[in-house]
């Protein structure tokens, strides 16, 4: 049995929305954006868990909660059996080292005035990873690890291409010898051939360093390629989670089915049969009651409008949050 390294339980997070003057005058209560509405999942030692879903569904918010950039409204995250938001864990800085985030935006996450060497040295010093004398050789080692030339240490971020900047971000994350990497759209801004290089590097490093990776991306082909398991998020909830190949070859939740059918094929003549989603687009400002997907689902019933479906195991598939998963998938 593979070991669970992180356990997320019923995570909720809502951002208050600033009230307009009219709201204040009319004494309307403040609204809030419900970015996460009860996310539960486990990260297993050494796996890559892919996270997919529409923009605004809460992927980055989840990633930011995991690295404690956002405190959740309710719910818990356990790492090594310790509540990461508890007083004990708060005092202990090792969590910040052991779980590293690599950000969505390669341009703004590196300090433009620091050389690559300074950036890596800073990470090494903050967490006291090496005595002063060993910092320079360790930087050389890290550059080697992510296959950047040694003279990269003296250069500033803007002197690198997008792909090289992502390597610097990876080197910085790896400098502190983390166990878990949170990669939020790590390669999304890169072109296919550079993307392939970074993905190859990530796969190789994972193997070598036994890393556990949470891989957030909207490129479904890429997520399928790198992930062992995949979670599909809709309006701040996991609607399906399971083995990557199973989920991609036979998605079970109506939303996963629509999502996967929308991926553009490389064949110009394969126009695909994209499942058109009907109805009002969802808003985290106003999450529908019952199944959050019911306003766009073609299989909707009365039960869906009232009762929130819980994630449950479906035979031969992963876990699915849908009241009618069996009927919907019986012919598949």
């Amino acid at each position, binding site marked *: 049995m593979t070991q669970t390294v992180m356990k997320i339980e019923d995570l909720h997070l809502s951002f208050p*929305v*600033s009230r*307009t003057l009219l709201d204040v005058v009319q004494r309307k209560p403040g609204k809030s*954006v419900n970015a996460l509405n009860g996310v539960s999942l486990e990260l297993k030692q050494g796996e890559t868990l892919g996270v*997919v*879903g*529409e*923009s*605004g*569904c809460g992927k*980055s918010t989840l990633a930011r909660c995991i690295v404690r950039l956002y405190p959740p409204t309710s719910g818990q995250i356990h790492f090594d059996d310790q509540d990461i938001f508890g007083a004990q864990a708060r005092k202990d800085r090792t969590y910040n080292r052991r779980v590293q985030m690599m950000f*969505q935006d390669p341009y703004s996450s590196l300090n433009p005035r620091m050389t690559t060497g300074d950036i890596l040295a800073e990470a090494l010093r903050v967490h006291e990873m090496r005595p002063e004398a060993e910092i320079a050789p360790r930087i050389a080692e890290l550059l080697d690890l992510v296959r950047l030339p040694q003279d990269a240490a003296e250069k500033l971020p803007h002197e690198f*291409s*997008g*792909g*090289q900047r992502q390597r610097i971000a990876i080197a910085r994350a790896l400098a502190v010898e983390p166990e878990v990497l949170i990669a939020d759209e790590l390669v*999304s*801004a*890169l*072109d*296919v*051939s*550079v*993307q*392939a*290089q970074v*993905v*190859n590097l990530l*796969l*190789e490093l994972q193997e070598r360093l036994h890393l556990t990776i949470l891989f957030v991306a*909207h*490129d*479904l*082909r*890429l997520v*399928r*390629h*790198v*992930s062992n398991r995949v979670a599909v998020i809709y309006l701040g909830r996991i609607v399906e989670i399971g083995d*990557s*190949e199973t989920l991609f070859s036979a998605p079970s939740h109506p939303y996963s089915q*629509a*999502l996967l059918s*929308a*991926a*553009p*094929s*490389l*064949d*110009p*003549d394969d*126009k695909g049969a*994209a499942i058109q*989603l009907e109805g*009002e*687009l*969802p*808003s985290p*400002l*106003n999450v529908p009651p019952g199944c959050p997907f019911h306003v766009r689902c073609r299989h909707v019933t009365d039960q869906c409008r009232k009762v929130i479906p819980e994630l449950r195991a479906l035979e031969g598939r992963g876990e699915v949050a849908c009241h009618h998963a069996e009927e919907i998938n019986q012919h598949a």
Partner: protein
Amino acid sequence: MTDHPILEVENLCTTFSRGDTALPAVRDVSFSLGKGQVQGLVGESGSGKSVTLRSILGLARHYGEVRGSVRWQGQELTTMTERQLRKIRGREIAMIFQEPMTSLNPLLTVGTQLTETLKAHTDLGRKARRDRAIEMLDHVGIPAAASRLGEYPHQFSGGMRQRVMIAIALAASPKLLLADEPTTALDVTIQAQILDLILKLADEMSMGVVLVTHDLGVVAQTCDTVAVMYAGRVVEQGYVRQVLRTPRHPYTEGLMRSVPQDVPPRTQLYSVPGTPPSLFSLPDGCAFAPRCQAASEACGSARPMLQDIAPGRQTACFHPLPATQDDAA
């Protein structure tokens, strides 16, 4: 490639200078675009795609030297005054920029930014502008559009900000859309919706589109023609079907092979070896030669020109990959 082009770009060259050195960001780019035609522009980061779009729109000349010709419905844009260009920008030619954060004003609400665009480029009245703004946000898939008009850009997620940018660009029904990675930050369902919207406008309003993307699936599903850029030059162009199915230039072939499709999961992907050249020190011959497996001695000394190799198909390579029957058809 087109009988009555609305846009004709000829030998476009854009050079930036850094100190004493000249940086040739775009070299001899030529293509033409017909009404309602969608042309893709692909290539590695730094290959000159964005600079090409900015040069067409007359933005690049403020910080670089632009040569060559850009004719828009018969008028030469490169020699127009800034005042003349301003009448065309936003109204006839709209652009969606790559960086959604920097192109939205953080101090103005999304609604104000949309209605201001409509005020500048259309004759719509106040009420009609508001309705159109809601309609556009709805089109690009912003949920609860009416209630979010009063919000500021930072209250939207990255993908939603990008959709707002697209709504602003399309609001005034332009005749030409220059779209720089418009859907790169978006997930596939919204991407499909926005590409459908762009295609619908291309079709119904005869809007021409130049679409920069690095998603070859998007090119396959959206574009009629495609140009592949490498180190500032077009190395291959032609009909999408032909270019994607039977790439003739080794670089195009490398791009196609890098896509994770039909490869066992979690195995190493193919990637073009090496990195793109620095514009400061471009190789003498073919810029792709240091990374090209088909390179011969000739490739290192002479530069291959973009040449016709089949009807509507051009490539810049001394040793193009063989054509197949599919290509000839």
